[in-house]
């Protein structure tokens, strides 16, 4: 690791606020696609696209795709915050 980077108290607090907001956003999406949408699976199953009842499809594949995208997206969004505050490594 390169030279010591020190943030002021205010900067540190602002950095953590931004990071926390991102965290809560990700968790809200995780909660929606992990739980909320599946509560409606019996109703969603009435819709059928190329053979897939949509309620079934979300639990089998749709939510999984969202999880993968969410992991990559949150990591790049956090990197942007790090760069903005100049707290990246090296």
């Amino acid at each position: 690791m390169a030279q010591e980077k020190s943030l002021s108290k205010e900067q540190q607090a602002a950095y953590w606020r931004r990071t926390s907001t991102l965290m809560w956003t990700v968790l809200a999406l995780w909660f929606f696609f992990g739980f909320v949408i599946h509560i409606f699976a019996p109703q969603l199953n009435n819709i059928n696209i190329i053979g897939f009842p949509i309620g079934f499809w979300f639990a089998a594949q749709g939510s999984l795709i969202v999880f993968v995208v969410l992991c990559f997206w949150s990591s790049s969004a956090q990197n942007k915050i790090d760069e903005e505050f100049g707290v990246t490594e090296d």
Partner: protein
Amino acid sequence: MAGSGASPSFINNLGKIYGLYTGAFVGVTIVLGIMEQLGVPNETIGILFVALTIGVYALIGYISRTAQVAEYYVAGRVVPAFYNGMATGSDWMSAASFISMAGSLYLLGYGGLGFVLGWTGGYVLVATLLAPYLRKFGQFTVPDFLGARYGGHVPRVLGIIVLMSASFTYVVAQVFGVGLIASRLIGIPFDVAVYVGLLGILVCSMLGGMRAVTWTQVAQYIILIIAYLIPVVILSAQKTGIPLPQLMYGRALQEIAALEGKLGIARAHSSAFVDATGKFSMNEMINFLALVFCLMIGTASLPHILMRYFTTPSVREARKSVGWSIFFIFLLYFTAPAYAAFAKWEVYSNVIGQPIAQLPAWVAKWSEVAGLLTVKDLNGDGILQVGEITLNNDIIVLATPEIAGLPYVVSGLVAAGGLAAALSTADGLLLAIANALSHDVYYKMINPQASTKVRLIVARVILIGVAVAAAEVAKTKPAVIVSMVAWAFSLAAAGLFVPLVLGVWWKRTTSAGACAGMIAGFGICLFYLIGTQFYGMPLWWGIRNISCGLFGLPVAFIVTVVVSLMTPAPSKEMQDFIDSIRVPGGKVKHVEAIKVE
């Protein structure tokens, strides 16, 4: 890459090395296929598959031997995000994921999707709440973090207790799985097969620790994903004309729905939250969501997964590697429902309703293997009815190559994939357990003056000890093992999630709060499990005990918060330490009084 640290040329050439390896593996498979056509017997093909793949893992294990502590415990922290993702994928996906999950989806329909969801969604939590901060903290084990954040031996010991109880039963199940696959594949007795498997596990991990396990896990991922995808891709091409099972099994679902009507099956494959009569059941819905919740939180608490994120070169890479991890896991999990659907389509259309004398060849073949598939003509009419065939979880993946009419070499490939899945998970778990004992108990608590040489000798002796213990337990074929594996997630969730997450995200968490929370959460979970499983205790609100974390986790959370608020806030030094692990850059400001390396 032997001797001292991994050479940059090795890391820079990973793509070439593993590309060549993949090509060689495909080549060997083709050669074995040709040998089969030339009349080489199936057993020989099976033995060659096992010997060649275990030989390659052993070779990687040997080349990766090391005499350095950081190499042994965290692979020298040089593993790029992409490869750490692959290693995590095979670390994560066990024999159960590879062999049994598609079968569970076949048997349970929508109900089984809780596993698919639960075993992927947890990575979102790993990515946002834990991985980058554990990487910044930058020590060797998960109990290390508890020790540094909460001070003293008590939190470390509590962490080790949770880790052991979650991981040991899990590793026993993997050794059991290795024995089962090896005995089915090459026909050696189960007891011997367990030790063959054990050897396969130890050669990967003993000489090189985490470094060797990492590079073998990458190799094992490549084999397991090829082996998983090939049979179902071919089956999809045969049945639908398009080799994309993940997209085309919608057609299978439609056919299944139509056949269910004809065969009078009440509980439809795609129907959500239904009981045996096909009616909506609130209890089913609650249990489904509870299971998903416990599996997700458990994923984010299992030490053999979290420790993989100690091995990346930077915080940034750790974050990205969670993305790659879930991507590589996703490739298998979003294919599993297709396996289940194609198999069900086949069974409903070509097996049930057929004269028993004329069943497809794969049914006859697998009904010879005890316990996997049974056909009984209960009403004696010579026609197979819905209730007259019983399938075991494991049969779907194992039989798919034959359903598709593929040569034996593909079955051998699938078995090699299952073996890779079981071995890689066993390696990761074994290392997590042995490292907790050698690093956290021996070095941190018993003998902090130990030299590098002594530490590594102790680490290896413990590794062998734990491995042999796991094999001995597996040999007794404990019936309860399957349920115990599922419990591991709830136990880890109740015992570790709260102290880890609040340790980073809530500065006010005190040592007393964390310890009380761990004891209370883990304790409630264990009480519910043992009470309902062995002493006939009634279920609370109808929640099955596989989801006992649903009670343990809130208890852990509330107790941690309440006790923390009742005890004095952590010192200024501790707060600075937390601040320092929250940002990727800069040094970690360890608390002086708490000795770290």
